[in-house]
Each structure stands twice: as C-alpha cells, then as structure tokens.
C-alpha cells in the first residue's frame, strides 16, 4: 500500500475517533461512540500492517496476542469500584509503549523518514544520523512515556493501597525534583548533540524519566488521585503525540492530541471542583498546610425506625453518595430504597459532586451499575439551587464534598471548595460507620448541624433495615 493510501485511511480513522468522542457526549449514544472509535483504531492498525515497512509479522502476532489476552481479561474481571486503578494501569502501559516506540525509532528502520535522515550505514557504527528534530521528538516520547508509566504505577499503588495513600514529602523535595529536571534536560541535550544507539545518555534519560514520574506522584495524597489520573491520561496522549512526531505519523499526532486535550479538560474540571490550582495539587501535600478549626458539638443519632418515618413523609429525597458507598457495596440497596421512595410518591435524585469517588464520574458509573437510570443522576450545580426544597438529603459515605467548613471556615484545608449544600436541606441523614474523619482528615461541622441526624453503622445494613421497614 502506498504512503498516500495509508494516510487516506488514517484520515478515515481520525474521523471515526472524532465522531466517537462526539457521541460520548450523551449516555444515549455513548456506546455507539465507543464502538466507532474502536473501529477507527482497528482501521488504523490494519492499515499500518500493510505499510511497506512492516516485514516480520510473527513478532507482531506474539505481541498482539499477549496484549489482547491481558487487556481483555483485565477489562472483564475488574470491579467497577476499582476502575480508577484499572485506568491507571492501562494508562501506564500506554506510556510504556510510547517510551519503547520512541526508543525503537532510534533504530530508524521502521521510520518513514525522508531519505536524508535515514540511518546511514547501520551496520558500520551505532551512531545514528537522524535529524536533530527527530531526536528531540524521540527524547520527548521517551521522557513523557517514561514518566507516564512510572507515575501511573505509583498512582495505582496509592489507589489500590499497596503503598501508603498519604502524601510522601521530605525536606528538599522541590530541590531534588528541580535537580532531576535539570539533569534530564542536560542529558537530553548531550544525547541530541551526538545521538548514538549505545550512548549512555540515552539510558540515563530513560532512567531519569522513570524516576521523575515517581517523584512527581509520591508527594500527592490519595484524595487528589482523581486529578493525577486525569493528568496522566493527558500525558499518555502527549506521549503518543511525541511518538507520532518521532516516526512522522499523522494519526498518532491527531489521536494523541485529542487524548491530551481530554485529559487537560478533566484535570481542569477536577481542580475547579476543589477550588485549587493545578500547581497546588501537584506541589503541596494535601492537608499538610493548614489545620482546620476543631469543631465540637453534639451529634443526634437516630435509628432505622425513625429514619423510615421521616423518609416516608418526605416528598423529595436526594442521595449524596461518596466513595464510602462503594466501599460498603451499598449502591444496590440505595437503588432499591430509591425505588421504594418513588413508589411512595417522592421525587428521588442522586446528587453527585464532581470529585466524589476516586476519579471523575466514578459515582455515576457505580450507580449505573446498580441500575439507577441516568436521568436521576444530577450534578452539583443543578441540585444546589433547589436544595432548600429537598425534604431529606441522605449522605452515604461522602464527607469532604458535603463539608460546610469549605464555605465557612477559612482555616479549613478545603476552604473555598464548592460543595453540595446538604446542610440547607430540611433534614440531612448522614450514614457513617463511626465518628472518624474522611479521606482528607478534615473535621466536618455538618455532623453537628441542627437538622442533621446520624445513622451510625454499616451503610448497607442501615439502608437494608430502612427498606425492611418500608416492606414490613
């Protein structure tokens, strides 16, 4: 297949990616959108196999089979609660692939480079005579790919709690990171001046980018992982972009930058939802800066019987879920209670904060899994203006995203973060295991509110007993 024909097919693939992303804009068309995007990918891959550069198919087959089996198994098996970990791992493997593609591009032969830039006398010496521009893009691909890979692995470790989810900070951290960056650039420049396959600088750059990814993510606490995942997602796109420049391939650049843009937008949304700048998320360990004013007061516990009586009389109920709901696996009983309340004539909604859960939109997926129709899922900005008219707000496993200290207490680490104002609802139920503070370790004055009732115990059991009251 000629280069022109291949590129024509790439245009088709790019169009499919674009249509696919467009259709992701509504739950009704999203499945089709994803399929279109997958078809685009399929076309791009098949067409690339026809490229005149591709000679040895057996190795490709080996790689594809191994990758497909692992990918398919992981996608089938993963629980919806651990979706953030899954995305982090997929991201990491994409990043590693970019690193390797960049590295392999140095060997030049798989490269559709203009004639003057093709490896000269590959057998004679290890020196490569690719253009400086190509070397720079190769380095970028290695650098971004490497840090995406190691950063994603650390993010996965924090989310899966195989390592501490706390921010790891030490004294000269910024200095060390700055030194690391300088060393990276220096080695990159040294390599670009004299590119060679055996150059020690190449290996140093690879090593340092991996280290840099680790160093960049460890000072970020578990509560901020949604931001990190979005950002790494963006990096993996940029890494693909850089690899595209390195091997002169349009489709890599188009697809990579679409992903890059997606990641940046989501990162931005997350940061806004926490009222923090990206720099603040990346460079300051959460909770390490300020200590909130201690709140004290008396909580008003209730039992399931009383909760039932209040819920039965309510004409509008909104559930505010957080990651705790997923931990307690309570989403199915929550949906059941929601249906009973609807049957009882109440208007039921599920109000979801943009950073609830551990990645953007995580709660929506969990509720959708429990068969909550998506038209009942409402966003923070939709529910807040009418929360005064809500009879009962049921907070399940959420803490920071409903913490009034974010509005009132200037000393609170989460001060300024937009929250769902459940404290303005007529009655608030807080389902909580005990009186411990949330993921970010911030005290919550909501628990002491005049209209707040605490329903202590396992969320799933508490709701089940309310359901039993309804049925009984």
């Amino acid at each position, binding site marked *: 297949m000629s280069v022109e024909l291949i590129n024509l097919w790439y245009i088709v693939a790019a169009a499919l990616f674009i249509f696919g992303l467009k259709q992701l804009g509504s739950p009704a068309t999203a499945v089709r959108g994803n399929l279109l995007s997958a078809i685009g990918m399929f076309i791009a891959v098949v067409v690339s196999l026809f490229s005149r550069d591709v000679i040895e198919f057996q190795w490709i087959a080996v790689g594809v089979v191994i990758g497909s089996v692992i990918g398919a198994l992981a996608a089938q098996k993963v629980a919806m609660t651990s979706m953030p970990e899954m995305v982090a791992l997929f991201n990491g493997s994409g990043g590693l692939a970019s690193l*390797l593609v960049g590295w392999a591009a140095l*060997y030049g032969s*798989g490269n559709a480079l203009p004639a003057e830039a093709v490896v000269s006398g590959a057998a004679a010496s290890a020196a490569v005579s690719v253009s400086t521009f190509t070397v720079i893009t190769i380095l970028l691909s290695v650098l971004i790919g490497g840090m995406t890979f190691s950063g994603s692995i650390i993010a996965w470790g924090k989310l899966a709690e195989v390592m501490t989810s706390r921010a790891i900070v030490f004294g000269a951290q910024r200095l060390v990171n700055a030194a690391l960056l300088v060393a990276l650039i220096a080695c990159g420049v040294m390599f670009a001046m004299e590119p060679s396959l055996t150059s020690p600088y190449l290996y140093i750059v690879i090593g340092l980018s991996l280290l840099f990814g680790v160093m960049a993510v460890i000072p970020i606490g578990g509560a901020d992982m949604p931001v990190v995942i979005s950002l790494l997602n963006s990096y993996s796109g940029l890494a693909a972009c850089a690899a595209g420049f390195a091997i002169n391939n349009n489709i890599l650049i188009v697809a990579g930058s679409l992903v890059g843009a997606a990641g940046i937008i989501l990162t931005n949304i997350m940061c806004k939802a926490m009222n923090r700048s990206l720099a603040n998320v990346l460079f300051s360990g959460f909770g390490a800066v300020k200590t909130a004013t201690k709140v004290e007061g008396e909580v008003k516990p209730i039992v399931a019987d009383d909760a039932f009586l209040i819920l039965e009389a309510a004409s509008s109920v909104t559930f505010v879920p957080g990651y705790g709901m997923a931990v307690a696996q309570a989403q199915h009983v929550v949906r059941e209670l929601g249906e009973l309340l609807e049957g009882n004539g109440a208007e039921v909604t599920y109000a979801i904060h943009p950073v609830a859960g551990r990645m953007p939109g995580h709660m929506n997926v969990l509720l959708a899994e429990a068969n909550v129709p998506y038209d009942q899922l409402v966003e923070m900005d939709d529910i807040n203006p009418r929360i005064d008219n809500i009879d009962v707000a049921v907070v399940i496993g959420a803490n920071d995203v409903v913490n009034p200290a974010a509005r009132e207490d200037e000393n609170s680490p989460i001060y300024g973060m937009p929250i769902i104002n459940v404290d303005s609802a007529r009655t608030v139920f807080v389902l909580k295991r005990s009186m411990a503070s949330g993921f970010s370790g911030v005290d919550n004055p909501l628990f002491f509110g005049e209209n707040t009732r605490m329903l202590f115990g396992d969320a799933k059991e508490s709701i089940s007993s309310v359901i039993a009251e309804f049925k009984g």
Partner: protein
Amino acid sequence: MEAVFLAFVLMLSIFLGFELISKVPATLHTPLMSGANAISGITLVGALASSGAGGSEMATILGTVAVAFATINVVGGYMVTNRMLSMFKKKPTEPVGDQGGRS
C-alpha cells in the same frame, strides 16, 4: 517543512479535542477517560512499524514489547469502556418521566 505540517495538525487537533471533550457531561467522565485512554493506545500503530521493520534485533524486541503493552491499552481500554457504557440506562417504561414532569 514536514515538521511544520505536523505541528499544524497538532494545533488543530488540540483545539478540536477541547471542543469535543468540553461537551461531555460529568456523568460520563469516567467512561470518557477510559475511552480516551484507549485512543492513546494508538501508539500501537507506531509499535507495529518498529517491531515488524526487519531492522536490528534490538528494534524488534523493543517493538514487540511495545506492541504487547499498547495492545493491552487498546483492547482493555475499549472493552472496559464498553462495559461501563452499557450499564447506563434510561428510566424504563415511563413515557415523559424525564425531568420530574415539572411544567
């Protein structure tokens, strides 16, 4: 000149990406992210060229490993996105139940 054309493509795609993605509702952000993530597995195309190039042994090894990892990204990403998206359902049987029927 080639590089300039590529940069042109890059610039346009980034703007297009911003336009497309900012229209996706918060409800779908998780599938969006994993779907976008699957697209970033496009590096597979680059990996294919490297591993099948018949160049040096090292290039083949690097390329093959890259193919494997990129395929994990692509196959896993699309499948898991599909799995998530198929769970999003509209409220059944109610004809005008959409926005609480407020008039």
